């Protein structure tokens, strides 16, 4: 098996299965070390996904990019796989979006919303949930249900625009 990043023989093989979909990563010793993998310690797939799935090569020269709020650099984030502050999600959005999708098979929160969040957030979240239901309805060819959901989404959006003072 060859390394995913070059033609050398891979020595590190990682498999993660999420929702029945298998993801395999193969690395040669050199690239494994370059990805910060200590060959003698347990490996966090999270850290690998962060490095590999992101458009890493494009960012290679921007390792000094730092979060304006907390000062964490891309290089430091890569090393630990942990973010410095909530704003880092915006700073490192490019690689995070890919990694989060790979980990969770989704990029949209559908759970609890803090009470303090405004009407707009709740509305957006409701629309996201309806969209998910709509996709499911279309997938099982339940077009009657899909039409209803589509109307609901439209209504939600209109109400949201009004709550927003028509500012959208």
């Amino acid at each position, binding site marked *: 098996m060859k390394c995913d990043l070059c033609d050398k023989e891979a020595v590190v093989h990682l498999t993660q299965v999420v929702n029945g979909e298998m993801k395999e990563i193969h690395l040669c010793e050199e690239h494994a070390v370059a990805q910060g993998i200590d060959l003698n310690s347990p490996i966090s797939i*999270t850290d690998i996904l962060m490095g590999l799935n992101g458009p890493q090569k494009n960012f290679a020269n921007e390792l000094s990019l730092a979060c304006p709020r907390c000062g964490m650099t891309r290089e430091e984030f890569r090393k630990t796989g942990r973010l410095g502050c909530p704003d880092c999600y915006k700073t490192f959005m490019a690689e995070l979006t890919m990694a989060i999708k790979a980990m969770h098979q989704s990029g949209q929160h559908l759970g609890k919303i803090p009470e303090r969040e405004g009407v707009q957030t709740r509305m957006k979240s409701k629309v996201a949930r309806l969209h998910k239901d709509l996709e499911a309805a279309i997938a099982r060819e339940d077009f009657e249900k899909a039409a209803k959901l589509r109307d609901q989404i439209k209504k939600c959006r209109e109400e949201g625009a009004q709550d927003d003072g028509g500012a959208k």
Partner: protein
Amino acid sequence: MTLDGLLQRHGGWLESGPAEGPVISSRVRLARNLRDTTFPGWASKEVRNRVWNEVVLAFDRVPENGSFLRWRMDELSALDRDLLFERHLISRELAERQAGSGVFVNEDECRAVMVNEEDHIRLQSLQPGLNLQKAWEVADALDNALEQGLSYAFSSKLGYLTACPSNVGTGLRASVMLHLPGLVLTEEIKPVINAVSKIGLAVRGLWGEGSEASGHMFQISNQITLGKPELEIIANLEQIVLEVIEHEKNARLRLMEKQEIRVRDHVGRAYGILSNAALMTTGEALDLLSALRMGTDIGLLPGMARRDIDRLFIRIHPAHLQKEAGEVLTSEERDIKRALLIRKFLEAK
């Protein structure tokens, strides 16, 4: 009540609960962080202390906040921190942190809030038996109460923002603690672990990893935290746990049908060693108590209560032994105390 007071009691999650037998307890953990605030691992001492103070203030708004005890890690001895860890009230990671890190624990130990672990807040709710729904409701209510005094980092797209992207979204980690000796003895545990891992759940040994888990205790938890509502995550996990319980029950039935004499031998030998040994390591005690626990479940040890054994599983750990002895003990001294504790327990039965 002081931390030493914990020793005289057991956690409320070690009472009787639904589906007990293979199931010991259910746990829901929520990760939360404060808006515009550096995560603990990257924050200065001052920021971490400020976060601790903010959480202390927020607790004033929690109903029955008087029933919560709180400890800061930098005020506790290593032994006390280990004691909290052995009781499943804090993580190893929190035990090793200092400035601003601490824990709130309510009196029956079914709720605990870790402050400044990997995230600012890690809130947990433990319930006896298989009862994820109740564990979620309790965690949700405590989360709502705390939120009255705190402003959480939240995005409408990514949900609750966490230090590690693997927790983002709901911040929810639900888990069930299971005793699976039947599957280990029939060597069916590996395929079960593999199958469960394939559907996005994680299986870990409670003490030790994989099929080598000491005491045959396992924890099954969700991996995915984003893109599904909390109740769906919990329902998925519960359904899989029910299937694993079914497999465990079948494995025990088959063992009793085909190899009853071996099962009796396994349980009887464990009882014999535990009743007579003068030296006992933690690992050996966990494995032998596991046999005893299974023996109780399948009716080979009348007069023995499963929950008493479960409590013993906690009390044989090093920090518990040393706190009970009131002094720091060497490894051999602990092995002596451990063997004695178990012998006394069995004599009383």
